[in-house]
């Protein structure tokens, strides 16, 4: 066992986790500011310059609140469910490559926590296990709104997970690998079509898959216009109606971490990740992810909410056939490309 490598990847993971938590805190600030601008408001601007200390103030407030357990809750499950949600959320970032290998003090530091050869499936598996935090929390609260939120969420996540997975198959066919590192390497090549020199980003060769992925990712993270599990105007707060204090904040933070991870993933899978026109590096990834995060907020400011049956109809009747079509087309093109047709 190579202990040095293990230690290095542990350290990278530790740094990444902390950066992610910090980012997530500021994601709440970012969302509130952007949303406020879109709505002719100012947003938080009292705590620190530009309200930059607002996330910290919010965190302190949430930690200081009473942790209430309802009388007819399933106590143990109720207490554990938010932790489950929160703990699983950042794991997806572990497989995202943040840059080339660094050489620090004579040690190779890969800017990637774990290069798993089934990385894409791993991310999908995390998403499917992540739903337990929601469903168990909703069930254990002993509240009907929570129960309905949990039911909605289950159906939604299962359906959109399918679309998410199938939309990625096209990318997998093109790259021929499940490893994000390989997928990234494929995208770093350039594509020459006549006089044009384009990056081989999969958004260009897989635009349909990209659109499907984006829609499914929004649904998967329970964000507007797919925020039915927590639709505050129907289900009060959905599965976390009964939660308060830091357990509430765990659900809240898990949602934001999921958004960041999904944005990073979308940037890596379709927009070439760290690849950029000049000076490849983590800043390009950050820029692309930031665009997706803005997109999330933009959607929330613009669109009404779907109804439950419309949401399921969209997944099963529109997105799923489109994803299958995309797979078939990509497969045909690929076969034609290698001369098998």
């Amino acid at each position, binding site marked *: 066992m190579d202990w040095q490598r293990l230690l290095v990847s542990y350290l990278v993971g530790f740094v990444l986790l902390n950066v992610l938590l910090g980012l997530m805190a500021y994601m709440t600030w970012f969302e509130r500011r952007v*949303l406020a601008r*879109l*709505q*002719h*408001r100012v947003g938080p601007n009292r705590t620190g310059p530009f309200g930059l200390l607002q996330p910290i103030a919010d965190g302190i407030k949430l930690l200081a609140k009473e942790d209430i357990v309802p009388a007819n809750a399933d106590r143990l499950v109720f207490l554990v469910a938010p932790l489950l949600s929160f703990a699983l959320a950042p794991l997806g970032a572990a497989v995202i490559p943040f840059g080339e290998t660094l050489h620090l003090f004579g040690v190779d530091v890969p800017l990637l926590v774990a290069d798993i050869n089934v990385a894409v499936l791993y991310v999908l598996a995390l998403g499917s296990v992540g739903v337990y935090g929601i469903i168990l929390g909703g069930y254990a609260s002993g509240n*009907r*709104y929570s*129960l*309905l939120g949990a039911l*909605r969420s289950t159906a939604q996540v299962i359906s959109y997970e399918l679309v998410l997975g199938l939309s990625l198959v096209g990318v997998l066919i093109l790259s021929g690998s499940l490893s994000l590192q390989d997928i990234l390497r494929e995208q770093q090549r350039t594509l020459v079509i006549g006089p044009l020199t384009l990056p081989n980003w999969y958004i260009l060769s897989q635009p349909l898959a990209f659109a499907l992925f984006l829609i499914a990712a929004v649904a998967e993270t329970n964000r*507007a*216009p797919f*925020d*039915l599990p927590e*639709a*505050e*105007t*129907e289900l*009060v707060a959905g599965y976390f109606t009964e939660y308060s204090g830091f357990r509430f904040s765990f659900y809240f933070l898990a949602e934001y971490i999921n958004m960041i991870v999904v944005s990073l993933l979308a940037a890596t899978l379709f927009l070439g990740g760290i690849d950029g026109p000049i000076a490849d590096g983590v800043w390009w990834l950050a820029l692309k992810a930031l665009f997706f995060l803005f997109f999330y907020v933009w959607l*929330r*400011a*613009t*669109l*009404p*909410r*779907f*109804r*439950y*049956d*419309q949401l399921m109809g969209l997944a099963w009747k529109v997105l799923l056939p489109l994803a299958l079509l995309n797979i078939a087309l990509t497969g045909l093109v690929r076969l034609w490309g290698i001369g098998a047709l």
Partner: protein
Amino acid sequence: MIDFSQPTPVILSEVRLITPTRRELVLNMGPQHPSTHGVLRVRLTLEGETVIACDPVIGYLHRGVEKLGESHRYAQFVPWTDRTDYVAAPSNNLGYVLAVEKLCGIQAPERAQYWRMIMAELTRIASHLVWLGTHALDIGALSVSLYTFRDRELILDIFEKFCGARLTTNMMEIGGFSREIPPDLPEMVREFCRYFPKAIRQYEDLLTENPIWLARTKGVGVIEPEVAINYGLTGACLRGSGVNYDVRKAMPYLLYDRVEFEVPLGTHGDVYDRYLVRMEEMRQSIRIIEQCLEQVPTDGPLMAYESPYVIPPHKNVMTTAEDMQRHFIWVIKGFSPPKGEVYHAVEHSKGELGYYIVSDGSPIPYRLRIRSPDFVNLQSLPYMAQGAMLADIVALIGTIDIVLGSVDR
């Protein structure tokens, strides 16, 4: 087809069919719920997400306003009308004041009538803006509510300029207005009329052609015209179903027969039609206000001081003994209208708002009854809700446009 002449027979086995089974969920929506617009409680029987039965429970905001009216002198009751439909206070004032004036046989001067119309139409816009914002918010369109409340502020500023209050205006007085119109008010209203069509376009950009908005509102909560009439619906709930009934046209009061406007009627009777109708009503209100501003005399009396039922003019109270005594009696004892009963309805932003007053010749009404439009309109909720999805319920509550202060009174 149901025979309308016969009462519907209740069959016991059928009653069992609608009592909730173990599989069904009885969900209490409200009285503390973000989208029941106050303290409405709706008891829903759900199968999955489908609503089997819907039972609105009201009365959580009941303050006995009608009974209070029977223990207050006529002029004292005007502020109470503010507190029934608190997002459209001037219209409530207007309905009551017109009823009392009808009872006493007073006619407010022309100039006051025009200003009453302007204020009533501004109120309609303000109320529709609150409706639009909350309705869109219920369906999930977050930003519209902030835009509408931004523009409602302009109307509230006009109210503030006019009478000093923004929400509970207590604006109308029996006989007209006792204070002069602020000189820069007409320009303020004109400025608003120039600005507001742009704002409507902004809301429509966000909603009217939005596919999710269409999916959430089209075909949802359909009320057929005959059903709407059976329920006694009024306002946009009735006109959305294509029935032409607008008190301003059917029984013109004030000077509505001197202005030109159109009554929008829906074609399908669903949530979307009611949305379209209300949007058009706001445009028509702007038209009415513009015409009123053109026609209103720049000076002239604002109060029907010739009537003995009206508070004497301020200057005379200070200078003449007779008016001082009259004022003293008016304030301490109140005026005593003739015996009789009267009903007067106005086209409130939510429908027909009627005040029914029985006078026994004393300074206090013998009986006061408020026909509040949203109380009547709310009855259609169970009809619209059956077979709808849970998420539709909030859209349906929104489309009726209720204010619980007016429903419960």
